[in-house]
């Protein structure tokens, strides 16, 4: 690996900026965070990803200081932050609702936090001007929040939380209120700003595409626990569980019992009367263990004739075709009734497509295409 790649999590000497140590948070009987440990490093763009109610927002609010852990410890640069009130933390937050002060102008909103630091008037003016420039809001400085568009409001919220140059910036569903096109543009803008300011960003989102686009590492959460922490590519290509595989992108899951046939090679008996499937796995599986084979639809080939020397080939019938423009997804029903999704790029015009509804087809994939998961 070349030394220029940013991967402090692989360096054992690197000290994390934030450390969750066995943190549990309960609201009454409800356990929002369950014995969670996690390290986040300086200058990371870290995403907390999960469905609503998985505890990601609670983690963010604990970092900001609006909630304290029931047990365990949260450290910021080696210091326990539990006794520090939110207004004394070098952490700023961009709220999901933006929480712009409606009675103050854009300029005053951005200056709000600076004024609390008793900065000199000139210094405040310079800093606000810098922030306005960074977020391209110079023209709107004198307007009130309700006089600008949703995208501009989002940038004001970002400028306001960045103005104090926090060690850590928390973003709670920062793009949730924007429409799809604007959201994509803004994602890149966020990445640029993160890179140019060198601030550590922690983003909370339920949108897996957004997390994959912006983050250097993603933590997939469920019911107050972290299921997997890894780079977007690892999460996608090597999920550690069915939950993660299913949450990130589209996936086919085939249940089977395993039988070792060689070094990291397994035969999978997935249904009576069909030849076994072949898959590789670095993780060991015992004889007859129940496992799940997860394969992404784009890794499955579809053809009218039986492909030659494919380790896994199954015949089925086309049930449905979802035409997405650049891609088509075929839903193929196998003899046992299971439906497998296969995706192909539409490199030809639609009229020349040779597979249609009810056609008998072959689907096939290589031994390394899928991931074998124990749970």
């Amino acid at each position, binding site marked *: 690996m070349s030394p220029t790649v940013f991967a402090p999590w692989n360096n054992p000497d690197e000290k994390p900026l934030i450390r969750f140590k066995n943190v549990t948070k309960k609201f009454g009987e409800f356990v929002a965070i369950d014995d969670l440990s996690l390290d986040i490093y300086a200058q990371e763009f870290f995403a907390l990803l999960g469905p609503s109610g998985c505890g990601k927002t609670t983690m963010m609010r604990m970092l*900001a*200081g*609006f909630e304290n852990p029931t047990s365990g410890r949260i450290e910021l640069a080696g210091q326990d932050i539990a006794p520090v*009130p*939110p*207004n*004394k933390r070098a*952490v*700023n*937050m961009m*709220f*999901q*609702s933006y*929480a712009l*002060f*409606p*009675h103050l102008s854009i300029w005053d909103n951005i200056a*709000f*936090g600076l004024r*609390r*630091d008793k900065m000199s008037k000139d210094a405040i003016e310079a800093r606000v001007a810098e922030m306005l420039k960074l977020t391209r809001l110079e023209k709107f400085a004198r307007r009130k929040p309700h006089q600008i568009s949703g995208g501009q409001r989002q940038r004001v919220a970002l400028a*306001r*939380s960045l103005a*104090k140059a926090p060690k850590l910036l928390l973003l709670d569903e920062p793009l949730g209120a924007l429409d799809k096109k604007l959201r994509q543009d803004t994602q890149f803008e966020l990445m640029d700003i993160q890179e140019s300011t060198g601030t550590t960003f922690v983003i909370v989102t339920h949108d897996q595409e957004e997390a994959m686009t912006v983050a250097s590492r993603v933590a997939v959460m469920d019911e107050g626990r972290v299921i997997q922490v890894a780079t977007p590519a690892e999460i996608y290509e090597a999920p550690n569980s069915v939950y993660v595989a299913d949450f990130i992108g589209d996936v086919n899951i085939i249940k089977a019992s395993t039988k070792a046939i060689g070094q990291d090679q397994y035969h999978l008996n997935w249904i009576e009367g069909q030849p076994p499937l072949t898959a590789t796995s670095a993780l060991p599986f015992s004889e007859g263990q129940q496992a799940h084979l997860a394969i992404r639809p784009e890794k499955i080939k579809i053809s009218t004739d039986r492909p030659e020397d494919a380790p896994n080939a199954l015949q089925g019938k086309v049930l449905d075709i979802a035409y997405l423009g650049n891609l088509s997804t075929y839903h193929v029903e196998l003899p046992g009734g299971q439906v497998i999704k296969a995706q192909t790029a539409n490199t030809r015009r639609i009229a020349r497509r040779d597979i249609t509804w009810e056609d008998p087809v072959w689907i096939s994939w290589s031994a390394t295409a899928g991931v074998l998961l124990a749970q």
Partner: protein
Amino acid sequence: MNMRRFALIAVPYFWLLALFLVPFLIVFKISLSDTALAIPPYTPTIKDGISALIAQLDFENFTFLASDDLYWKAYLSSLRIAVISTAFTLLVGYPIAYGMARAPEEWRATLMMLVILPFWTSFLIRVYAWMGILSNEGLLNQLLMWVGVTAEPLQILNTNTAVYIGIVYTYLPFMILPIYAALDRLDESLNEAAEDLGCSRLQAFWLVTIPLSRNGIVAGSFLVFIPALGEFVIPSLLGGSGTLMIGKVLWEEFFNNRDWPVASAVAVILLLILIIPIILFQRNQQKQAEAEQ
């Protein structure tokens, strides 16, 4: 269809014209008449004809009001009492409204009902309830003497203090409700944002909560100030001989002195004084309605 629409508009319209606008014009007219020992006790009357009415217009009652410092003092003292008691009502009402807005969701309907309930209870009875408490032998004095704050009973009933207490007590719901409505709409994340940006709790309250509940404060203050200015029952039951309020003066001028023209002139001036706060109140309400759109 058109007849029906005409009737729909005309019935309430003429009712209000006949029983609100015309009487008010009569007050205005009589305020410009002479006192007479007759029934009705003023001249000229409508029976004398329109020309006589106009020919005998007379500003004497207003010059009389201006020359007799009783009236000036009454107006000023009404203003002072209304301003002071509005301020006290705000001081008492704001924390209650704030507490309600911060209370758990499931309590709020009950708290709301508890604020509104006294409003359905007779105004007179609510004022009367304080007479027994504030009198020299009343519970408050008994309590103060038992605690040892004072050896002699304090004279509270029949003073301006009692009037303040009465106004704060009876008009408190009018102050609480609009402030509560404003605070209830307030997004809690605004306060969190302020704290996140370095405010202490108190600073966040001053810089965010207070400015954003301003409309509620203004509306509540006017809802207390406007009726308090013309109040009659509270000063006559709780106030003393030294309590000068214009509503009481008007009443006495009318019922005791039977000086209808002067009473009318007092009413006209009271209304002129009230027009300014009423217009300000209307503008505040309009601004709020626009802000909500």
